[in-house]
């Protein structure tokens, strides 16, 4: 199999909502499945952020709360479709949204992450 070394990778960010009934390790296993998919396919996970249990604005699949997770990553554009099929196949994920980051969005996400980390560092220091 010709190993396709792909240097051109776009920046993406995905927010997905998992059902609140998941146990802790089931949740980490689900997230790990997606980060592994990215790493295996030559992508790079930049950051993983979970917003915890949040109230949904309208019920999804008869549930009013959901566990939100944000994934910032780089991936080969051709593989994003396969990545999303993984989400569709997974019953634990109620909803997901992948967006491509242009340069303004990328600058914003980097700045947002610094502000977030800055805050946590301040509390630790």
């Amino acid at each position, binding site marked *: 199999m010709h190993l396709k070394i792909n240097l051109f990778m776009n920046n993406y960010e995905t927010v997905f909502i998992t059902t609140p009934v998941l146990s802790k390790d089931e949740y980490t296993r689900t997230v790990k499945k997606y980060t592994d998919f990215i790493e295996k396919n030559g992508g790079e996970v930049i950051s993983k952020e979970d917003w915890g249990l949040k109230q*949904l*604005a*309208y019920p*999804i699949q008869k549930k009013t709360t959901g566990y939100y997770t944000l994934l910032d990553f780089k991936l080969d554009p051709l593989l994003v479709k396969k990545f999303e099929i993984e989400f569709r196949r997974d019953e634990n994920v109620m*909803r997901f*949204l992948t967006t491509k980051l242009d340069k*303004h969005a990328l600058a914003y996400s980097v700045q947002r992450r610094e502000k977030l980390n800055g805050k946590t560092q301040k509390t630790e220091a």
Partner: protein
Amino acid sequence: MATQDEIKFLNAPKLGEQKKKYCRFKKMGIKYIDYKDPDFLLRFVNEQGKLLPRRITGNSLKYQRKVSQAVKKARHLALLPYVTDLLK
């Protein structure tokens, strides 16, 4: 008591004049509207959760489109409701 016509204004009452509307994104130099924080997007949505028109928000066309895209993404992620009452 001073009758209506005796009241003298120091300067002319500015009733008809309308506050000059400006696009807040151009003025503040915001380049990207984030669909992930709903509190910012709430300003562009009325009580029923519907998008406010440009003549009310005063946005320029380019940024009004970005706002509407961001609101629709936020609705998809259940950060904003599609329709509700007394949102604010």
